[in-house]
């Protein structure tokens, strides 16, 4: 090997070695935060193609700290964000269904412009929730022509507080704030069969149940209550089937709940439940993943 070639290779190796930590910090660091009334779960990931958990934390919150159920969670998030201010990372926040309202907005073919469609979604929320919905931040998803669209609404104050935790000039950059339903559905929408299925998300004191048939959302209900066992899930489904679907509704249910990974599939009350579980991730065992279920949906 010629001396000049050897020197050039050595120089290149030195440059790569010097830049690697900076590149890793710049490219690969992600922080996933799940906000729920009783806890804030945080995962820090490194690696793009095969992300690996390098930090995990759960902060317990006071659900009755303020007038809104999210006050305690945002306080904890603010503390976490202060610790992250020197960490270069892209931050994704997943909102518990406790903080989000959903509605199915009927198809309105005459409404062409996005502002008109959003106003129509706002009208739908006002019909359900009254005047207080006027201050909510609403998002409206896309849907096939002629199909109902999923809309979500959160308190404006919640979004403002979250954004305030991650100032634009900080190293930790807020790149996404998404409802749990969005994270979970996008994570597992390929599991929805063409014939249709129920999609059930279970959190402490909360369930979110949707029916998807032929690629269309036909029912959606976000309900407060106790949903700790299969019988309660079956009762919820029986009730919803009578309200929204009728006898022709599918009997298979895709469920994402804490500890879903423990049981792959089971049957109760004439319903077939299939658990939605994550593929293993470096740095996080299945047993340890339960508190981070919401955050992992956005990975």
């Amino acid at each position: 090997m010629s001396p000049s070639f050897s020197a050039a290779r050595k120089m290149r190796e030195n440059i790569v070695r010097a830049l690697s930590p900076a590149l890793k910090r710049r490219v690969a660091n992600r922080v996933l935060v799940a906000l729920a009334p009783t806890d804030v779960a945080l995962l820090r990931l490194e690696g793009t193609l095969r992300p690996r958990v390098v930090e995990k934390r759960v902060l317990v919150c006071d659900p009755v700290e303020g007038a809104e159920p999210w006050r305690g969670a945002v306080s904890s998030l603010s503390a976490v964000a202060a610790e992250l201010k020197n960490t270069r990372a892209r931050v994704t926040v997943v909102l518990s269904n406790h903080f989000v309202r959903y509605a199915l907005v009927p198809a309105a073919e005459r409404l062409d412009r996005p502002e008109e469609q959003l106003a129509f979604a706002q009208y739908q929320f006002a019909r359900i929730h009254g005047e207080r919905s006027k201050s909510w931040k609403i998002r409206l998803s896309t849907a096939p022509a002629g199909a109902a669209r999923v809309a979500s609404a959160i308190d404006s104050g919640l979004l403002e507080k979250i954004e305030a935790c991650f100032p634009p000039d900080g190293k930790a950059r807020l790149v996404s704030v998404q409802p749990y339903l969005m994270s979970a559905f996008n994570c597992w929408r390929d599991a929805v069969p063409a014939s249709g299925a129920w999609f059930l998300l279970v959190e402490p004191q909360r369930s979110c149940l949707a029916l998807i048939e032929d690629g269309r959302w036909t029912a959606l209900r976000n309900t407060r209550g106790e949903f700790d066992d299969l019988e309660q899930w079956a009762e919820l489904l029986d009730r919803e089937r009578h309200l929204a679907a009728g006898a022709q509704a599918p009997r298979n249910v895709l469920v994402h709940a804490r500890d879903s990974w423990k049981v792959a599939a089971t049957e109760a009350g004439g319903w077939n439940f299939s658990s939605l579980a994550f593929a293993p991730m470096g740095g996080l065992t299945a047993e340890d993943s339960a508190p981070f279920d919401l955050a992992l949906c956005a990975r």
Partner: protein
Amino acid sequence: MKPHRLELDYVAPPHRSPWAGVAVLALALGVAASVTVHYGSVRRELTAAEAARGLLGEARPARAIPRERLEDERRQVEAIVRQLTLPWAQMIETIEGASTGEVAVLQMQPEAEQRRLRLTGEAKNREAMLKYVRRLDEAKTLSEVHLVSHQVQLDDPSRPVQFALQASFRGAQ
């Protein structure tokens, strides 16, 4: 039908289908590959052209030419030069000047190598032939004019005499 993605993000813009980007990327890669291949091809052609130019530009070793061939060429060149340096105009003028109505020139054959002229003609009779030879001999451009042969054409009723003569160019080396 596969359900659409849910787009309810409060910060990020709606997720766009990656296929447009993938298509653009594929197109860009295709163009890049094509350009790379073309570049390689052009580079090879350039290398070949430079090599050819290098071959042409270098002083090639002189090939050995056989001496016999050189001699032949030299002789050919000298013959051509002699042919070109014959006093054609004066020669023709002399022959025309010596001609009369009783003599016709049939053939004129210069021999540049020996600087001689062979001439074939036909005279009305023998006296006309001899007068013609004498006139040529008196010309300034010719010398040593000799009658080489003569023959009466018996099959012709007028009995002409066909003859051949030879002369040297004056000043012949």
